[in-house]
């Protein structure tokens, strides 16, 4: 899997969403992506890419697209 595929897969698995919904997916846009879901998301991304996401990035990460932009600092897509 490429990194972008891995990134997408984390959302699909954790939040039970379809690939075509990802582009518009935002924090609290689906029930599963609440603060509990966000903790799970960050942990899963950190494990998948073997990184540590900084506090400012965790609280700035409010959509699928924003997350992609943020993760580009840590991961080569």
């Amino acid at each position, binding site marked *: 899997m490429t990194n972008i595929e891995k990134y997408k897969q984390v959302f699909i698995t*954790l939040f*039970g969403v379809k690939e075509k919904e990802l582009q518009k997916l935002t*924090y609290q846009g689906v*029930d*599963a992506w*609440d*603060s*509990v*879901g*966000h*903790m*799970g998301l*960050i942990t899963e991304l950190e494990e998948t890419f073997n990184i540590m996401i900084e*506090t*400012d990035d*965790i*609280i*700035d990460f*409010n959509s699928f697209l924003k997350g992609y932009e943020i993760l580009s600092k840590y991961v080569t897509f």
Partner: protein
Amino acid sequence: MNKTIIITEDGTHVLYGDISDFSESILKVIEHRCLVFCLCQNTLGSVCGYFSFIANRIVPVMLDSKINTELLAGLIKLYKPQYLWLPDHRLNDFQHDKIVFTGHNYSLVKFDGNHDFPLHNDLALLLTTSGSTGSSKFVRISYENIEVNAASIAHYLSIDENERPVTTLPMGYSYGLSVINSHALKGATILLTSKTLMEKDFWTFLKTQKASSLAGVPYTYKILNKLQFSRMDLPSLKTLTQAGGRLNKELRNEISSFCLRSGKQFFMMYGQTEATARMSYLPPQDSLTKPGSIGIAIPGGEFSLIDENGTEIKEHDITGELVYKGKNVSMGYATCFDDLRKEDENHGTLFTGDLARRDSDNFYYIVGRKRRFIKIFGNRINLDETECLLENIVPDCACTGEDDHIIIYITDKNRIAEIQNYISVKTGINPAAFSFRQCAEIPKNSAGKTIYSELDIS
């Protein structure tokens, strides 16, 4: 009356006097004592509605604004409220007769078909037993319960009019509501936000409005830890409180030492909705010397322990059921509208269902639970009730777990996604809290009861 009671996310200041005006407007529409379903969120409309109902002796049933439409319809049938107070964005989700009042992006909807029925004179509000939306059982809270508990909390937390708590918990949840009540009682200013700790806007709001305290369940502290809270510079923040379940040792030490180091006060507390909110607290100076303790009873309250025969345990370090006495002990439960006429059934005594011991300094420690309860993100969940819910869709299952994690044993693993979705919707709990294990069959004894100890080996 010219003091600010609420500052909202957008910086709007609302005065104590504004709430009185709002309350008078509502009284013109609802002229008599009756039942109102209040769909709560941490916004102005929700809080103003709540204060107005209480002031006008109208009885609100506190529900989360995100409640599933179907569940709400079921509750409306059971409790026959005459009005529904809800955020405007949910108006289209319900069939209603008419909108009779609007304010702060909330609407008051009237159900013409529901008529008056007796409400006990002391009954002030109804709170869900678990904080989640899955149950139709509510706790009956009296006016005295609210006032006494708020005053006691304000006393031991030394709340005065200079306090500025920022909202971190839903106001429909007993702990979240107790923060609002105890501060409003003292003329403090509540920083009202529906943003979560995971959002930048929350932190900007906390800093610019100089929040002086925040409240959290164990999961809140897990988040704070993940956000490396102890490295943040938050000089205005002086008090942290924690309740809604036991904090693990690592977090307890981390937060306690951080607070001692940085001159903040950290209060670990214990309570139940059945006691309005709060029953005990651990004084901050004891947070490291009495590890794991729920502390001492709040002012006006009293703890004791009883053995299996109901006899009081006088010795130290003997485990028994924790019993609380105080004027904040609720009137009892309700499972339908007809229960709302009932008298106080608890008479100031609550058998908590928690097993505890007392040390030689009379500090209490929870060591277990009498019934199969666990805490999920601060909400008390009965595992037996969860099994009952699941048995609506699966032939057999078993639930075990620990705080913040429920394990569901099923016999057909192909249905995991469906079951996970069902239980999450029914309980209002994030699906991540549930994990699944498959077993060939659920082990039972000859009486047909599940043998939980054999689940993992089957």
